[in-house]
């Protein structure tokens, strides 16, 4: 049958045991090994094949082969990891932590060297265009 307040035991137990609150942001928990966080690209390895652009479910990546420009709209990225899986050179990765919050709309665009016919030179990397 019913009881009056069976919750009492639980709340009293809570009072005398450790609280479960994680004191974020003062203490940041170690992220999980496989967590899918912010997307980034090793632009040096990118061959501008545009597979990521075509496979992205959110259509947030655009690749300009001529200029050697890889652009991603981080505000549309859904962090699914599809592009990472299909990249032939494995140059796309997810960081383990999430992308920081922003107050302005911004794009990630990375300038690499587009592959010359046959020959692939080492590409210069520019900082993220924040």
């Amino acid at each position: 049958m019913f009881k009056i307040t069976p919750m009492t035991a639980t709340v009293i137990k809570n009072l005398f045991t450790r609280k479960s609150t994680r004191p974020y942001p003062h203490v940041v928990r170690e992220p999980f090994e496989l967590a899918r966080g912010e997307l980034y690209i090793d632009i040096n390895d990118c061959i501008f094949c545009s597979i990521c652009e075509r496979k992205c479910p959110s259509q947030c990546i655009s690749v300009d082969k001529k200029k050697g420009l890889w652009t991603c709209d981080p505000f549309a990225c859904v962090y699914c990891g599809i592009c990472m899986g299909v990249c032939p050179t494995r140059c796309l990765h997810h960081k383990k932590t999430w992308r920081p919050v922003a107050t302005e709309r911004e794009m990630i665009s990375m300038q690499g060297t587009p592959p010359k016919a046959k020959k692939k030179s080492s590409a210069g990397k520019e900082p993220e265009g924040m």
Partner: protein
Amino acid sequence: MSKTIIPFGPQHPVLPEPIHLSLTLEDEIVVEALPALGYVHRGLEKLCEIRDINQMIQVVERVCGICSKIHAQCFCLGLEKMMNVEPPPRAEYLRVVWSELHRIHSHLLWLGLFADSFGFEALFYQLWKIRERVMDINEATAGNRVIISVNVLGGVRRDLSAEQVRWITSQLNMVEQELKDLQSTILDDYTIRSRTVGKGILTREKAYELGAVGPTLRGSGVAQDCRQLGSSALKHLEFQPVVEQDGDSFARNKVRFLETLQSISLVRQALKGLPKGEIKTKFKGSPEGEAVSRVEQPRGELFYYFKANGTKNLERLRIRTPTFANIPPLAAMLPGIELADVPVIVLSIDPCISCTER
């Protein structure tokens, strides 16, 4: 007698989602309840024409964040049926593990919100605290907390290591223990019972006729659960649907609570029987023809219809979600109850509006 019309929603603290009900009241008694939808409608079925079938997995996952894995699974099952692709056994077991984990987190979420709907905050917080363990399992194994994106056509994307299997089992043991500590509160507490017993009664006949699904149907005494179809590895696992006879909010509450424990047992069984081998079948080609598929979501039966024409894009995708089916029973339950019971009864069908409107 004076009639007042109270808008329930679209923005309401009890309900995180925007459903709008116009409640016509006579002295705090509801005489009419009209649902108004459209606040979450995105029209994503239409997206199948511009996204290919692989991209659509990510889209249908986002029909509803709470049961995303199961949406993707239903989509994959249907297309695999159309294309005659058989996922490897390990993938089938892994699918069960993740879908049941999703069911656990969804039910815990719901039990918490339900407690919140009658103002039992301590219970709400306690259940969500337990739920965080399941979210951690999701994040550790699949890389994301809510939308875990593990399904692909022909299998799954992530594998579990032996160490992870042990860790999941130990975490689930804790979840089970903590839940059992709350059992007497959820099932026996006087204040909870007096708020839920006999509220929002749906008789067995009404539930069946109005097309109720999931715990709403099973709380009314009909033992129907799509998991009985034995899709994925469920055919190898021991499973009996949870049924309650009373058909009131309390019965639905009880069904969900017991199902949570049952899902823990299913995950355990699936992890124990996890076969070795591949996690994905490779295949070629595009689907053609028509098919339907259905699986059991935390909220009930999910139904997909596919029509394809041999290209990479589907011609028509239709998603009938469980809440869509549960709204007519809800509309039948509301008249005649008190205003104070409206949140309780609305929540008792576990409404998922983003599912409903897609």
